[in-house]
């Protein structure tokens, strides 16, 4: 693939790696926010190309990982209902709730469909007018606009048997919360390029200024990641607390205004729980009261049941950079991708799972 060849070109990657080594004079802790970036760092062994002075901290940016157990339990209970078709993204299928996962409930007879595009859930609803179709809408700012679009489309097509079980997170509030944590030693941030393509740069400019932390907006290919790190190190060495757009082929200053309008129309800010991090103020989205017929928690009067604390899991500490996955005593022993004990191991993009899979 030509695109890949450009952004995975070994010579260019080596040149960038040398450039980082040249400009890096001090020790820095840099966090990549997004799980996709964590996955790529692990897959291409990019950390081995960095000077020892740079330590990467793998942030909380995987929506599958941070979706709380209580909401997964709600999805499981919906999927067990006779008249419900639960529609989900593929990677939520094996994430365990308190007891089971969606794959188990499907094996027991639950009607659970996997889609790649949320809009396909609407087609399922149209084709099954006698069933209630619930889409398990998880994600960050990247997927939230598409979820909003399903509500808009559902309204336009007069589909009345469709609703969403949402678990939607916003990245900047989580970063603020991490920065406020005294133990979190974070010097620079690689912001997730695809999130910024929606949010734009403004929000991150405020973050950089107020928290005195440089932010490099970064893509996902090996070249992109190293370029983001290079830019971030330059800012750190020059003590510049600003945002650098190192992913300009996808991110513009104002972001995707239309997508944000759509998000604001159907969703409002709310406090949400992040699996592994706890409840963070105004860090998520919920469906506005005006559109409550699309909110599965209200439509089916779902309540969060009692959820046992994941007492063996130190995901929160790992996502804050206080610990590395392989310093956890359960890593690779009691806790594996087949039997995850908590957030960072449940999805292929979780940091523990990436560490385990690629044996960093």
């Amino acid at each position, binding site marked *: *693939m*030509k695109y*890949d060849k450009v952004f*995975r070109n*070994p010579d260019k*990657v*080596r040149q960038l790696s040398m450039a980082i080594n040249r400009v890096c004079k001090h020790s820095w802790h840099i966090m990549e926010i*997004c*799980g*996709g970036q964590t996955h790529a760092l*692990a*897959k*291409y*062994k*990019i950390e*081995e*190309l960095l000077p020892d002075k740079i330590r990467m901290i793998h942030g909380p940016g995987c*929506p*599958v990982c941070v979706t709380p157990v209580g909401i997964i339990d709600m999805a499981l209970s919906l999927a067990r209902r006779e008249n419900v078709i639960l529609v989900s*993204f*593929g*990677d939520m*299928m*094996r994430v365990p709730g308190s007891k089971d996962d969606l*794959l188990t409930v499907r094996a027991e007879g639950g009607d659970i*469909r*996997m*889609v*790649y*595009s949320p*809009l*396909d859930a609407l*087609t*399922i609803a149209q084709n099954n007018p006698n069933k209630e179709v619930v889409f398990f809408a*998880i*994600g*960050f700012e*990247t*997927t939230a606009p598409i979820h909003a679009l399903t509500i808009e489309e559902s309204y336009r097509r007069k589909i009345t048997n469709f609703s969403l079980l949402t678990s939607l997170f916003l990245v900047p509030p989580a970063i603020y919360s991490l920065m406020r944590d005294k133990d979190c030693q974070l010097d620079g941030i690689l912001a997730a390029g*695809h999130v910024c393509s929606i949010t734009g740069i403004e929000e991150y400019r405020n973050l950089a200024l107020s928290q005195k932390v440089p932010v490099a907006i970064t893509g996902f290919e*090996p070249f992109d990641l190293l370029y983001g790190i290079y830019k971030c190190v330059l800012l750190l060495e020059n003590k510049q607390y600003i945002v650098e757009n190192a992913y300009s082929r996808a991110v513009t200053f104002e972001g995707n205004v239309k997508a944000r309008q759509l998000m604001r129309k159907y969703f409002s800010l709310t406090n949400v729980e992040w699996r592994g991090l706890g409840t963070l103020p105004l860090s998520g989205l919920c469906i506005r009261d005006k559109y409550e017929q699309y909110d599965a928690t209200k439509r089916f009067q779902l309540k969060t049941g009692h959820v046992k604390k994941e007492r063996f899991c130190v995901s929160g500490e790992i996502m804050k950079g206080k610990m590395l996955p392989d310093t956890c005593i359960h890593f690779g022993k009691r806790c594996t*991708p*087949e039997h995850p004990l908590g957030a960072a191991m449940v*999805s*292929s*993009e979780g940091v523990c799972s990436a560490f385990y*899979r*690629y*044996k960093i």
Partner: protein
Amino acid sequence: MKYTQCSLPKSKYDRIILGHGGGGKLTQSLLSDLFFPAFANPFLNQQHDGAILPVHDGRLAYTTDSFVVDPLFFPGGNIGDLAINGTVNDLLCCGAIPRYLSAGFIIEEGLPFDILKKIISSMAKAAQEANVVIVTGDTKVVERGKCDKIFINTSGIGVVRPDTQISPLNAQPGDVVIVSGQIGAHGICILSTRDNLGFETTVKSDTASLVDIVENLLSGVPEVHVIRDPTRGGLSSTLNEIASTAHVSIELEEEQIPVSEAVCSACELLGLDPLYIANEGIMLFILPGKYAEEALQLIRNSPHGKNAAIIGQVIGDEKAELSMKTSFGRKRIIDMVSGEQLPRIC
């Protein structure tokens, strides 16, 4: 036999009903109108309870596989040719010349006759191409909902070539790993046909029997240690299995692994890794390094082997792990896939 000529008028049933599996006249008409003519050969034509086959000197290879693919028809093939090619390829992996196949069908009532006919005719064509005969078979019809349209089991017998010792146990340090073509096509093709994944691709399944490649290779190279077809679980699972069976490590070179652009882009889009995607027309060969170039040429000279490549080597390391040197010269471990590969969202 009289009743074989007394089939019911074809127009009466345009789809399979329970009676077609009942062992009576309908079953007989199904056999005589469809299966016997399509698969005709002297062994099957005896219409006996089992096939009586000549005994060969030497060793026999025997294998079985069941096929439950959904959808039944996909770009590049269907469940019928898949069922023949899969079993033929398994025999080839034993170093055998495939000879005789059995075919068992479990059919859901309501399956349109036209569909069954297409499947049977693909099977007949695939068998002819692989130079095997279907010598015995069975048909059962189950109630609607008890199976998904049609399931096929094929078993196969092949005659192992004298002087070949092919087994996963034989992989040893100094061997090279050769793959016969571009990987990942079958799995990506099947995923793209699942209606709710909503992506389109031009990728066709690679389903094929690889008699030509194995024939060319084994006739030209005196020593081949392992032959495997990396079907479910893809290249990574098969090579991991070989590493752990033979207690050796295998090191791949990322840049050498042939993957088509279309499979590459589909994998990028869906968040999948081509190393874990199923193949149906690809073989892996492990053989001594000294024969590597010669073997590669022989494979490339075969119709199905044009894109063959040397992708790695076996090293004497007791960790028994599969690793890959990335394009940037770093090494990473390639683990077995855990469960089903699921598309990720971002």
